[in-house]
């Protein structure tokens, strides 16, 4: 466990803090709006770093431990930076019976990371979802926010390798 400061981070003239402030204000600094504010914060910053969490907790008058507890309870919030590209493999029942596990293991093997991790170069994050609600076109994979259906392991590898090619 690292040592962590509990001082209020300076907004650093960061425009994103202004947008966050507006969201906090819109919810009238209500402690119960923490989930909504964390959604906004994650949208703005990509992930919830500690300074940000402290900032939100202070603004909403929520104890830091509560803020941390809430943020870690929900899958949606990430405490670590995400890769430039994301690949979400749906592991819902429909996708599972149609071979989602094979897609995932192919991706994991190819990129040398496990689900929930990001490649060391920060290019790709692989995650799983419990169901993206696209069961009619299972198995589904979300590439950078766009759902694609009837995905084969080969196709998934091809898509992710393409990202790698683009950065070279």
């Amino acid at each position: 466990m690292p040592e962590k400061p509990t001082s209020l981070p300076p907004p650093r003239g960061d425009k994103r803090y202004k947008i966050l402030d507006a969201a906090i204000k819109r919810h009238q600094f209500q402690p119960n709006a923490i989930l909504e504010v964390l959604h906004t914060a994650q949208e703005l910053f990509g992930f919830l770093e500690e300074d940000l969490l402290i900032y939100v907790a202070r603004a909403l008058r929520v104890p830091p431990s509560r803020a941390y507890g809430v943020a870690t309870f929900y899958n949606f919030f990430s405490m670590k930076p995400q890769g430039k590209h994301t690949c979400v493999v749906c592991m819902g029942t429909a996708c599972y019976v149609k071979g989602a596990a094979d897609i995932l293991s192919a991706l994991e093997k190819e990129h040398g990371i496990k689900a929930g991790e990001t490649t060391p170069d920060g290019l790709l994050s692989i995650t799983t979802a419990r169901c993206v609600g696209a069961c009619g076109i299972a198995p589904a994979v979300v590439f950078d926010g766009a759902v694609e259906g009837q995905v084969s392991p080969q196709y998934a590898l091809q898509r992710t390798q393409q990202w790698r090619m683009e950065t070279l």
Partner: protein
Amino acid sequence: MTGEELLAAAEKEQAARRQAKYCVAVCAAAGCHSLGSTSIREIFQKAVNEAGLGEQILLYGTGCLGLCHAGPLVEIQRYREDSWERWLYHHVNEGMVAEIVRHHLGGDQPLAQFLYPLDDPFFRSQYKIVLENAGRINPERLEDYIGADGYSALWKAVSEMTPMDVVREVTQSGLRGRGGGGYPTGLKWSTVAKSKGSRKFVVCNADEGDPGAFMDRSILEGDPHRILEGMALAAYAIGAEQGYIYVRGEYPMAISRLKTAIRQAEKVQLLGNRILESAFNFRVDLRIGAGAFVCGEETALIGSIEGNRGTPRPRPPFPAEKGLWDMPTLINNVETFANVPAIVRNGGQWFSRIGTEKSKGTKVFALAGKIVHTGLIEVPMGISLRQVIFDIGGGIPDGKQFKAAQTGGPSGGCIPLPHLDLPIDYESLIKVGSMMGSGGLIVMDETSCMVDVARFFMQFCMDESCGKCVPCRAGTAQIYRILEKISSGTASLHDLELMEELCDLLKHTSLCGLGQTAPNPVVSTLRYFREEYLAHIEQKTCPAGVCRMGAPDAACGSAEPVQEKENCL
């Protein structure tokens, strides 16, 4: 907006649709969307404009047309001599668009080779209430919903019914909660209506968590105003002025459609203060879930709306007495609310004529898995599973054998071949060890291993357990561990026995529904496919050829388990 203006707007919309040469509805639901229906719509619009038909053709995106596997889908409608003619094009691509526009829209010559037969059992056996507006409206236009008699139920309620009348109508309809449990909706409404509190709340549970289920998503995306109207009717009936929709963060399109719908409704006073010039006020706010299955449990959902960790609390007290901020709260699922406008509009008696004696109305199912027609269907209660799977669903692809149908998600169970003629209603499904659930129906064929399926669901429950109560937190992990051992051929019969004891423990001692129903997939597969378990244990083989036999992986996140089973005190 006044009631008269509402009726006038509906007339105007209906007239516009009738006068159009053709109405072209392009499916814009998740399935077709990811198959490229958005660009198909743009191409369509361009082609229509180029053909000079822009004025005569009504082109719009619409809610799920049902046949997801054959997407992108385009439905063409024409009003002629007091009735609507319909054509459905499937697997639409760019090349087809040009031909459809030229021959069908321009020359009135439907292209038979691209058409999906509408007299197919897939369509004939369905009965649409909740999904009645799919194909008919553009979910992003309030006017379309009004044109489809939208908000007329709300107008009827505020202008000529008392709150108790609304409750009575819903009670009479026999509607039961569509979220899974099947609690009588009318009874719930009257309990909340009678509970005392300075404020009351209406909450729509749109945290559709069951993997393999996308009914609620389709309703939210295809007909968002319907939910708002259903909630407003509920609020009127119980005396609430504030509503919340708790929607999954994984459904961005549903969220944006709901936001649009709320804004539109507020603008014309269909939500907000003095709705339709009456004394009734009602506002709706969205709360976005953040990926926790347990938040579908009503007390956990309340906790989450209040900004806490979504952990359930024991009931009683029930939310109907003490819910959000300890005030009486009515929580219903999306599909339940979606039924309400039709019930109030047509009367409870009309609704109660559909379905079986104890289960009224229709149920939306999401067909998925090893089935030809994956997609969304709405069928009357009491229809048999065989009809759903083989007539509507088109049977099992690739000539494989049917093995089991899984309903109710991680809380439900698997129904084997001998029970296929079972009528679909709440009681029958429970009797065979499954449950209605929210409506995901996943079909498995001979290549699915039931131990593997049970393991999949147990892993799901283990990952989604909130960790508050001991049986669920530690018990799911233990059951999962045993299933892992069975599927890797390293379990003994003693393990099987221990697992059954654990299932019994979880069912009876867990705090909330998640833990209490978590053993269901295991119990139901054990009940019907015990020989598969025994094959894994005794012969160390997987009959379906799914499980890889060998040493199991180490228990999650831990080193080799310490072999210290004896007295540790």
